[in-house]
């Protein structure tokens, strides 16, 4: 047996490894992300349940831990309905776009020192570009469904995501002023050496809040979930979707939440670095995961706490509060970096 491995299998593995290396690495990243998506839905229901003095899912499996898989199975077994007035190609294309965009962004996320699939120079711009494309899945879904609720949801979403992207861009610029590089690993390395070096402490603290609130709007989460406001629009842009296409929207939305939490972690919470130098013996990937979980808890907490914004209030917050504030901060941080030599 051992000879077969060393004589036949091992040389072949060595031979084909350069060809299968990237696909294997992609799987190593994607599978944990999808598992986290499954358990994010579980924790969302659990945490909101606890906040509302309920129990949350507790029937399927021990402590309800198999609930996400039961839900997934249920979705797969349902019938895929395509409305007769819909544009079938775009109708089916849009959930795929949402899902694929939520996954391709993970290519540049550094999980630990050197643990990154594509360590590109313009990593943060890549992330920004991919997250700005997310609106297409929603707009195309709303248009192709040929339904007024879906269309209204899509229009709201397009306006909302474009509005908040602007201030998100300016927040990223303030971080880039301090770091001096667009590479995500460099951004994390600039925050080494403990919690007092993280960008969330100090001059960028207000920008961290602006960024977090903008990510809420960018992922269409409560209190900015107007695109899917169930009280007025039934479910907004995915009202006509069922079964697998719906599951892809759902997975994409939650994978986007995790991605945005990861982006917040990288930009402001020190990425893979431990909060205190004494704790550096814990592997960086664990710190990274813990910080993402921390930010995600805020996503869920906010959902259980705040009522939904009215649409004009949402636009006011984006254009009249966040945009001037982040623009002023760009000038301020640029001045500080210029005069202190950054």
């Amino acid at each position, binding site marked *: 047996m051992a000879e077969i491995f060393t004589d036949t299998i091992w040389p072949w593995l060595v031979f084909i490894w350069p060809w299968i290396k990237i696909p294997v690495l992609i799987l190593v990243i994607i599978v944990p992300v999808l598992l986290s998506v499954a358990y994010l839905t579980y924790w969302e229901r659990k945490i909101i349940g606890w906040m509302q003095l309920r129990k949350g899912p507790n029937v399927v499996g021990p402590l309800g831990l198999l609930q996400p898989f039961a839900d997934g199975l249920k979705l797969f077994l349902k019938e895929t309905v395509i409305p007769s007035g819909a544009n079938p190609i*775009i109708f089916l294309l849009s959930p795929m776009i949402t899902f694929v965009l939520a996954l391709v962004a993970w290519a540049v996320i550094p999980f630990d020192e050197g643990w990154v699939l594509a360590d*590109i*120079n*313009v990593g943060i*711009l*890549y992330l*920004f*570009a991919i997250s*700005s*494309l997310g*609106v*297409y899945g929603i*707009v*195309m879904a709303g*248009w192709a469904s040929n339904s007024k609720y879906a*269309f209204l949801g899509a*229009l709201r979403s*397009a*306006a909302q995501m*474009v509005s908040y*992207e602007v201030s998100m861009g300016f927040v990223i610029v303030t971080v880039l002023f301090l770091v001096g590089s*667009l590479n995500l690993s460099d951004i994390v390395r600039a925050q080494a050496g403990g919690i007092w070096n993280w960008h969330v402490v100090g001059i960028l603290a207000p920008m961290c809040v602006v960024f977090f609130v903008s990510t809420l709007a960018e992922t269409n989460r409560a209190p900015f979930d107007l695109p899917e406001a169930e009280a007025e629009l039934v479910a907004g842009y995915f009202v006509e979707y069922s079964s697998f296409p719906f599951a892809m929207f759902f997975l994409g939305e939650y994978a986007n939440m995790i991605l945005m939490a990861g982006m917040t972690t990288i930009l402001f919470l020190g990425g893979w670095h431990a909060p205190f130098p004494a704790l550096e013996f814990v592997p960086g990937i664990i710190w990274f995961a813990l910080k993402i979980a921390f930010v995600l808890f805020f996503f869920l907490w906010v959902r259980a706490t705040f009522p939904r914004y009215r649409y*004009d*209030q949402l636009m*006011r917050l984006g254009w009249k509060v966040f945009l001037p504030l982040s623009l002023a901060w760009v000038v301020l941080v640029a001045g500080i970096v210029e005069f202190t030599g950054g």
Partner: protein
Amino acid sequence: MILQTLAFYLFAFVAVASGVMVIVARNPVHSVLFLILAFFNSAGLFVLIGAEFLAMLLVVVYVGAVAVLFLFVVMMLDIDFIRLREGFMRYLPVGAMIGLVLLAELAVVVGGHFVAPEFGGFVSAGPVTADATNTEAIGLLIYTDYVFIFQAAGLVLLVAMVGAIVLTARRREGVKRQKVSDQNARRPEESVEVVKVPTGSGV
């Protein structure tokens, strides 16, 4: 190298094909979606020649912002497809002329490459100095040699923006506006009155 070549032909083919589909597609929304696909593949071509910063800017600015507004407007238009077809012959001469001009320009550029190949060295997508990244090289050029042109471009955009706002903004009478500062400044004393109502009579 074979992979790059294959990627180039893929991006180039899809870009050209979707460019054709932009003008051929019957439905304007499909046209915009093909336009986005063309942008995307051009970004891929930029990456292949080593201009990753421009590629990302193309995606962020054109695909992420401009085309979204485009799609937004086109989706809301109530378009009569038959009337749209009617204008085709009328616009054909103008369109053909623009096409010819573009073709002539392309011929000059490509022809220059064959006639005087020694000047080809001036055209390079990568930064001139090897130690600077694309982003740094572009920044250094824009903010030193071309700073006035850069500022002028900014001014043109600003004027366009102010013009758009002036053209579309209009004061409407009778619109209730929310003033958050006024709302926050309200105190219970001035907005709530506690009254004791005797039984059997109103306030």
